């Protein structure tokens, strides 16, 4: 029996859904981090004073799980420096002073696509990472030992985070590329089934894709109940295929690959034109923003420049986010640049930015009833406070996907998911310590044995 996982209903605020992306005037300079993905940071291949053009390589991948980085404007490399990223780590950056021409690099040409390897090389060269937010290099997701492993590719068009509509716009404004990308997957990866998972609060998208797939083979549209976190990878896979991704396994282990709709359209665009991911459609919204809209901006454009170009603020922003309010990251200052996987920047005034004070847990069980993965957040909080790591492991805190439903729904406003994040790190450290201890003991035993043998 298939059933729906739990979740929450959170006000959508999708006021920008009908607005196609507006191309903003280019900023004076962009600052492009070398770490915009999960994995090894890229290594800069330019030096200060170099003249670069849009689409030219400026950072080469630092490993297999990594991604190349390209200049998003034409101009002169002004500085290769460091800045504090929103994740609290220092990251290397390349700052380019724009010459305002946005001149395209001559080397850009559509990739030659004949074999599967050509296709994967193209995806690698495109610099694409998961654009839904996680920023996992796309090519790594698509590299499989054996093509039979992929039973179903799910195109994630859920966009369940409030405010964000950039995926909706990609689905409507670039539907040609989305479908073209799916055809590429069918051609080169022999994908037998492609499902568009779209929330039913986007009837326009559902209708359009029903029409589009009627001309295609082995593609279908699935209308999903609008609820948060419908677009969470495990949730989406379960609702589309009925398969549960087991603990410690990957979606591929149940035959599924999930790609964000903007990611797939970007793959197609790269294969068509050879222009890597250098511009991004971003939703600019939030209570402090004067003119909420979708904008097309170069990667590396600073937040303050983006906000300014859209008309600025109507009240002083107190909290500014990368992404939506459920899982978005609050930034310390507006110097932070647009990243590859930035789908929205939101600015909120004082009222929204000040969270309510937590009060005592009343054991109402709402966090349990609303957890999509059937975890027990209130129990985990108690275990964490007691430092009971065994209990945290028993409660499977490691499975928490940090969607934040528990914290959202808690009438006592307790920081439940925030505690889970700390607990996860603690469990990880505990497991690592156990492993290290076991290894040290093994090494000691080994050494003793050798000593024995030497005698």
């Amino acid at each position, binding site marked *: 029996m298939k059933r729906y996982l739990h979740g929450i209903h959170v006000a959508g605020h999708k006021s920008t859904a009908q607005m196609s992306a507006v191309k903003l005037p280019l900023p004076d300079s962009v600052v492009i981090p070398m770490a915009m993905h999960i994995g090894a940071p890229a290594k800069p291949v330019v030096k200060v004073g170099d003249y670069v053009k849009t689409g030219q390589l400026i950072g080469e991948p630092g490993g297999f799980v990594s991604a190349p980085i390209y200049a998003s404007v034409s101009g002169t490399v002004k500085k290769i420096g460091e800045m504090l990223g929103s994740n609290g780590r220092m990251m290397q950056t390349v700052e380019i002073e724009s010459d305002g021409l946005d001149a395209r690099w001559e080397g850009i040409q559509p990739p030659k696509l004949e074999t599967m390897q050509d296709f994967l090389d193209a995806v690698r060269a495109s610099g694409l990472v998961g654009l839904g937010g996680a920023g996992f290099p796309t090519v790594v997701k698509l590299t499989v030992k054996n093509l039979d492993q992929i039973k179903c590719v799910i195109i994630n068009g859920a966009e369940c985070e409030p405010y964000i509509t950039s995926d909706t716009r990609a689905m409507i404004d670039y539907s040609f590329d989305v479908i073209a990308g799916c055809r590429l997957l069918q051609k080169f990866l022999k994908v037998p089934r492609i499902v568009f998972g779209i929330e039913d609060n986007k009837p326009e998208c559902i209708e359009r894709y029903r029409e589009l797939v009627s001309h295609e083979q082995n593609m279908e549209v699935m209308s999903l109940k609008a609820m948060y976190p419908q677009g969470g990878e495990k949730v989406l896979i379960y609702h589309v295929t009925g398969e*549960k991704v*087991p603990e410690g*396994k990957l979606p591929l282990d149940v035959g599924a690959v999930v790609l964000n709709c903007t990611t797939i359209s970007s793959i197609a665009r790269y294969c068509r034109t050879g222009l890597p991911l250098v511009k991004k459609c971003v939703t600019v919204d939030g209570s402090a923003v004067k003119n909420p809209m979708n904008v097309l901006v170069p990667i590396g454009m600073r937040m303050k420049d983006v906000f300014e170009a859209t008309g600025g603020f109507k009240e002083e922003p107190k909290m*500014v986010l990368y992404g939506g309010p459920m899982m978005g990251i609050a930034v310390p200052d507006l110097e932070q640049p647009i990243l590859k996987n930035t789908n929205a920047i939101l600015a909120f005034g004082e009222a929204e930015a000040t969270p309510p004070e937590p*009060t005592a847990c*009343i054991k109402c*069980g709402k966090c349990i009833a609303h957890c999509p993965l059937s*975890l027990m957040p209130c129990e985990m909080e108690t275990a964490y406070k007691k430092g009971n790591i065994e209990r945290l*492991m028993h409660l499977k805190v490691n499975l928490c996907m*940090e969607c934040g439903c528990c914290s959202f729904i808690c009438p006592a406003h307790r920081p439940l998911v925030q505690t889970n994040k700390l607990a996860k790190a603690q469990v990880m450290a505990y497991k690592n310590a156990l492993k290290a201890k076991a290894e040290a003991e093994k090494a000691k035993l080994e050494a003793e044995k050798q000593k024995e043998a030497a005698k």
Partner: protein
Amino acid sequence: MSQIVAASPHVTTKNSTAVIMRDVLIALAPAVIAGCVVFGLRALLVVAVTTAACVFFEWGFEKLCHTPSSISDLSAAVTGVLLAMNLPVSIPLWQAVFGALVAMVAVKGLFGGIGKNFANPAITARIVMFLAFSKTMTAWVFPDAVSTATPLAMMASGESVDYLTLLLGNHGGCLGETSALALLIGFAYLLIRGVISWHTPVCFVGTVFVMSLILGQDAVGQILSGGLMLGAIFMATDYSTTPSTNWGRVLFGIGAGLLTVLIRFYGAYAEGVSFAILFMNILTPYLSKWTETKPFGGVAA
């Protein structure tokens, strides 16, 4: 321009403990009104006294302990109203105040306040009063001036009861328990507002109904009389003293139903709802443990 940095999520529900408790008070209003209609305005006086006393004792206890005051979350007021609902309308007011002291200090405050107590304060206070002041606690007032026994006592001695009277509440009993209809209106409100889940009340009342049928009793009369509706809807759904998983709530309801039937049909007392709930309160940590949810995709270690 300094920015507030915090871990996600950056939005929360507008719901709060105070909103939930306010909803419970609203849900109790029909039963309080029914109590006033059936027993006269002294019912309102008893409600006012126990509520004021509960709020005062919570405030005073927290003052003594130098802990922040929690009276604004309205939970003390809820306990106060619930306690009054469990008392006969003729209860001497000083005894009612004593009950409030037991509920707020002995049962709730000393165990750490809201969310920490393991026994339902109003139920426990009622039981203490029942044992301490047996005479006044069973001095039923009969609104029709003809009856001499509560419906449960009547059924126990083989008399028949009128269902419409039971629904409307025009019969002897505690001041808030007599009108099943008023309590059911409150139940509907709590369900609509998402304050409680249906599991405990339905399983509790359902078990009493089925067991009464099996034992050849008047099943409809049994579920409409005594403190069953009040207990099942308002006391057995108290958050901190009942399981927080749905399966735990099912077990709680069934267990409380079985115990109620045992006491009603085979015990020395005519009514067993409060003892049943208190007993299940004590079992709650185990019910919670036995009904832990199964993590999605979890693999046994």
